[in-house]
């Protein structure tokens, strides 16, 4: 076993901006595979880059969302519209769980 080095982590925030190429690489998908995902509104390019697809930029927190979408699609065999719906509902469930947790103590 090699000596353990300490690896520093970086927080992914909505302020960090990535390109379509970064997104493709992170998710191991081609741009052609990512386009329908954008068309379904699962992720969206930053508004100020929206007009020209050649200059699309994304917030870095799209990456974990895309990866969740890919896993859901692959593991549960759901289409993109279903994946988009599942992600929206999961966001809502997450928010409600937090709310329940907060209320349980009051």
């Amino acid at each position: 076993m090699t000596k353990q080095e300490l690896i520093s982590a970086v927080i992914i925030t909505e302020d960090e901006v990535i390109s379509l190429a970064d997104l493709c690489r992170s998710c191991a998908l081609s741009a052609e595979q990512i386009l329908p995902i954008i068309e379904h509104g699962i992720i969206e390019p930053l508004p100020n880059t929206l007009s020209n697809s050649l200059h699309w930029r994304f917030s870095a927190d799209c990456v974990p969302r895309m990866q969740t979408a890919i896993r859901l699609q692959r593991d549960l065999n759901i289409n993109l519209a279903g994946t988009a719906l599942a992600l929206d509902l999961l966001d809502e469930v997450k928010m409600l769980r937090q709310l329940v947790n907060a209320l349980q103590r009051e």
Partner: protein
Amino acid sequence: MEYKDYYRILGVEKTATQDEIKRAYRKLARKYHPDISSESEAEEHFKEVGEAYEVLKDPEKRVAYDQLGAHWKTGQSGFKPPPDWNEGFEFHGGGYTADDSAGFSDFFESLFGQRRPGSSRYSADGRRGGFQARGQDSHAKVFIELEDAYQGATRSLVLQSTEMGADGRPHIKPRTLNVKIPKGLKEGQTIRLQGQGSPGFGGGQAGDLYLEIGFNPHSLYKVNGHDVSLELPITPWEAALGATIQVPTPAGKVELKIPPGSSSGKRMRLKGRGIPAKTRGDFYLTLEIVLPEKLTEKEKSMYQALQKEAARFNPRAGIGV
């Protein structure tokens, strides 16, 4: 090695039809999918269900497994398949039929053979090809304490990753990472470890590892985004007269001034005392007036005196009685 009852795992009878097995699997896969379930053991369940389905969905493997099960008695401690257990069975398409079989149990492996390159979602392998490519990014979940979000923390993580062995075959290898988790995280946020994903190809860079952060529940505090809250018990006289009292926060004790005439349920805010992100969260306190369980005679008479003196006050005036 433990015998695995794949029928029990899927919750179906041994006589279940292939359709029933498929339905049971789909239902459980949805229930235990790690992106959906909030259970801490969801991932293990999900893998177990996947493994059971991998065997039972395939009529050849199912028949072989059924024959093995007939020799199995409950209560038997260790399990070893008889050396000729699968004699006469022909498995098509190699041992595995699914792409995602890395991480199946030893039990499965002893029956249906060696693991072959698979891309488990939490230990992704890379793409094939003779070109130079950056490795794929991987993903895992990690739970931290609220205090870690205030101070940062160092965590040791064990991840399963696929590596090429000396024999030219891929092997699943546990990999331990010492990770420095930065302060200022909120629940559900993701952090990135550069170069810790799957290895690259042809000299390409390794991918990144993404860790999704969850918080372990705290006995005192509630967390909402970057804001943290606490229910603060105070005495009736502190509430009536005002007081300066000590309050715990995840970053240490602070002094808090309670204004005179504070009622139960009053919310107070300590600005910037929440999770120290770029925009710092706030720390909220909800006052809760608490009485001693039993009053002494003297305390009782003092309350009675107060009752007479403060008869002008009707807390229920607003509700019409």
